[in-house]
């Protein structure tokens, strides 16, 4: 981990707001901009990163010193429990201590090599995985978090707790992203606040955290993820890609080179 210049933790507190989406889009975008990128999926129960990155079911090999060699896609190094499961549909029914041990191994026993940035996707909540991750990263320089919310109050409630968690555990906050922020109806072009509106901006103001931007609901993004295709490559001129790019640029500005 010493050879990893920046650690970027993607958190939420709320499930289903798009942590894995944001984590993968950041990784793909930063790699496209010439950075050496890794992405670590510490969602042990619901690992989504391999599917979104189009590498589901790949095998992880053991290299020098018995360390795991991460799966690669377009030069991005990827690690997830999904690669270690005999059967992708197996439930990983582990209590906290086993998950902790796995996360520690992912940080120390993977041949990440020299990376400009390691993006770390997390499960929802503020529990074992998050506590262990913060404990392992304590003292590591250039570690920061991007917190993802949805616009609705029920998401913001959980994200408020996550922001408290970050403050309590001393995890620096790069900023907040509001995902699934409105849907532009393809029939009438009306922007419908399917998941309510305004929560993310208010949250950022309340907690004095940078508001990095909003990503609208885009069925093409959901489809691209299901197919493991890079959305911004497929639809570079889309409003969604522009929003993601703006967020990416702001985050890139906060990384050390």
């Amino acid at each position, binding site marked *: 981990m010493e050879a990893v210049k920046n650690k970027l933790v993607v958190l939420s*507190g709320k499930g289903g707001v798009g942590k894995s989406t944001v984590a993968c889009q950041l990784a793909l975008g930063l790699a496209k901009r010439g950075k050496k990128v890794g992405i670590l999926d510490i969602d042990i129960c619901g690992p989504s990163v391999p599917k979104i990155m189009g590498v589901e079911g790949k095998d992880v090999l053991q290299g020098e010193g018995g360390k795991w060699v991460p799966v690669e896609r377009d030069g991005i190094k990827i690690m997830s429990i999904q690669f270690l499961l005999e059967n992708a549909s197996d439930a990983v029914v582990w209590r*906290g201590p086993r998950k902790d041990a796995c996360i520690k191994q992912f940080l120390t026993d993977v041949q990440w090599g020299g990376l400009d940035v390691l993006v770390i996707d997390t499960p929802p909540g503020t529990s074992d995985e998050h506590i262990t991750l913060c404990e392992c990263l304590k003292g590591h320089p250039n570690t920061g978090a991007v917190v993802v919310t949805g616009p609705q109050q029920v998401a913001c409630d959980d994200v408020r707790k*996550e922001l408290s*968690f970050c403050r309590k555990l001393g995890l620096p906050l790069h900023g907040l992203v509001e995902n699934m922020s409105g849907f532009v109806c393809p029939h*009438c072009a009306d922007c419908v606040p399917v998941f309510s509106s305004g929560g993310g901006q208010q949250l950022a103001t309340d907690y004095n955290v940078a508001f990095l931007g909003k990503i609208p609901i885009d069925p093409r993004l959901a489809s691209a993820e299901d197919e493991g295709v890079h959305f911004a490559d497929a639809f570079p001129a889309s409003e969604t890609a522009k929003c993601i790019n703006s967020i990416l640029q702001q985050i890139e500005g906060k990384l050390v080179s």
Partner: protein
Amino acid sequence: MDKANEHCVGPQSEAAGKAKGCEGCPNAQLCASGAARGTDPDVAPITNRMASIRRKVLVLSGKGGVGKSTLTKELGFTIGRLNLQVGLMDADICGPSLPRITGTLTGEIHTSNEGWEPVAVDDNVGLVSIQYLLPTKDEAVIFRGPRKNGVIKNFLKDVTWGELDLLLVDTPPGTSDEHLSTVSYLQQAGGCDGAIVITTPQEVAVADVRRELNFCRKSNIEVLGIVENMSGFVCPNCRGESEIFPTKKGSVLSAGERLAEEFRVPFLGKIPLDPSLMMSCEQGEPLRDHLEANARDTGKKEPVVSPALVALTAVATNLLKRLNLPIPKQP
């Protein structure tokens, strides 16, 4: 057992009482003696509480953000208004949503010699959630597994649920401590009557839900049915239909239907994305009440027909049939 330390390894662990995290804990001596590793003494009081509850059902997913809490809330209100007694247990310790979406964020759990009284969210519906126990609304609940298990135990052992027709347990995403503990206690205390499993149309959700269904199989939990939420969207402006979360390309069946077929469990129905349903959660009211309020506010005679409400009502009726809970004669 007294309140455990933050880094408690759990009384069932081999290192119980002797691990670094045990220093200073009031239970350390008990755990070190191995006494806590025997039959859990809390099973008996949990069994007593559960004895007056006719049916206990888990609301599961595996995937976050698919609508577990929303469905729990709507089922609770709908079934309660059919004059059945309903308890809602919010087992999502880190991200408790039910108080907000039932409009009871300021609720308090009153304690007495009898135990902890659930917060009344409707005439026949009571709710317990860790949210009610937090000193401040936004306080993070930074608990490792054993402490979360302790809270779940409290909810099953100490809450005066009384005589209920149905206890619905809302769960967090995943297949971890909260799920294992809830299932284990319910099964030791008279049984769990099954689970409703929720998915959304995308493959990324289906993958997690498949794992959850395998968890149910392994844990001998009967899957009462699969619900597919966020299934299609009808624009409130132009009534045009869109698929916000598209299902697998080339598939005739929807995601939920495919899972139901694969696991040979019933398919309970699809619930479309409805901004009214979202707003009813924002405002902490049942969808039906929200639609009626909208109608009053806009001077309409009748509330607008909501496909989501129709679908949710069908899921509730279907669930009661599967649980063999007849609907009482309505006054």
